[in-house]
């Protein structure tokens, strides 16, 4: 069977991207990013187990501009994946499948993820920064 010539689904090139579609692929992208972020969490724990110098250098990295960009990105990715994951769990038990409902819950997820990210970084700033 000449499988290579058959069209692929979904036809990403011909759809006008609705919100749900963008959020779906973002769920994957943030999931992949968070898997990498988990490795950093383990690295932090290892540095804490290893000794004061390792922990200090791990903290210095986190407080660097590169570290801060990563942390900020990961914090939003976490809250987005968390909120959208809850949205998926509701779908899995059969709620919220209507087109209008799914669109509305998508907007809620985006707003909630931004608010939670803002709250966490407000806490960090109120404590005087990362390092």
């Amino acid at each position: 069977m000449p499988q290579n010539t058959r069209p692929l689904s979904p036809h990403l090139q011909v759809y006008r991207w609705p919100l749900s579609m963008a959020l779906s692929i973002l769920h994957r992208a943030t999931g992949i990013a968070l898997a990498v972020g988990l490795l950093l969490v383990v690295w932090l724990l290892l540095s804490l187990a290893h000794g004061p110098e390792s922990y200090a250098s791990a903290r210095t990295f986190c407080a660097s501009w590169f570290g801060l960009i990563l942390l900020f990105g990961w914090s939003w990715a976490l809250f987005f994946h968390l909120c959208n994951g809850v949205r998926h769990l509701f779908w899995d038990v059969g709620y919220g499948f209507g087109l209008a409902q799914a669109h509305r819950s998508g907007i809620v997820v985006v707003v909630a993820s931004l608010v939670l990210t803002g709250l966490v970084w407000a806490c960090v700033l109120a404590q005087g920064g990362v390092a």
Partner: protein
Amino acid sequence: MSTPGMDRSNLRTPLKEVRGLGSAKSGTRHFIIQRVTGLALVLLVIWVVGFVLSLIHAGDYAHAREMLRHPFAAVWLIAFIITAFWHAQLGLQVVIEDYVHARLVEMLAQIAVKFVCAGAALAGVVAVVRIYIGQ
């Protein structure tokens, strides 16, 4: 009357040929574990975010270690590490299944993801235990 695909000299049914070859490979097990670990992570990660914020607030090394000496913190963190890497492996597995179409590369990627997730999870657990027992 003979069943299609069934050899008269052989009593084996064609079912043998297809067992374990379904498109989902292992039925709904993967789907369910992905959801259950996800549900667990909703609870686990909220506490972890709070814990990380207080670690930042604690500042110095001794204080941070002291926070991990609490049994509740150690148990919760270990639960988070194991569940998060389990969930990550399941998610990455689906991504690789969907996008990597070369059989050998896919297989190697799946094995690599499993090794990294299992190894990192074990390293994380050992780190927490070492801090907890004060080593």
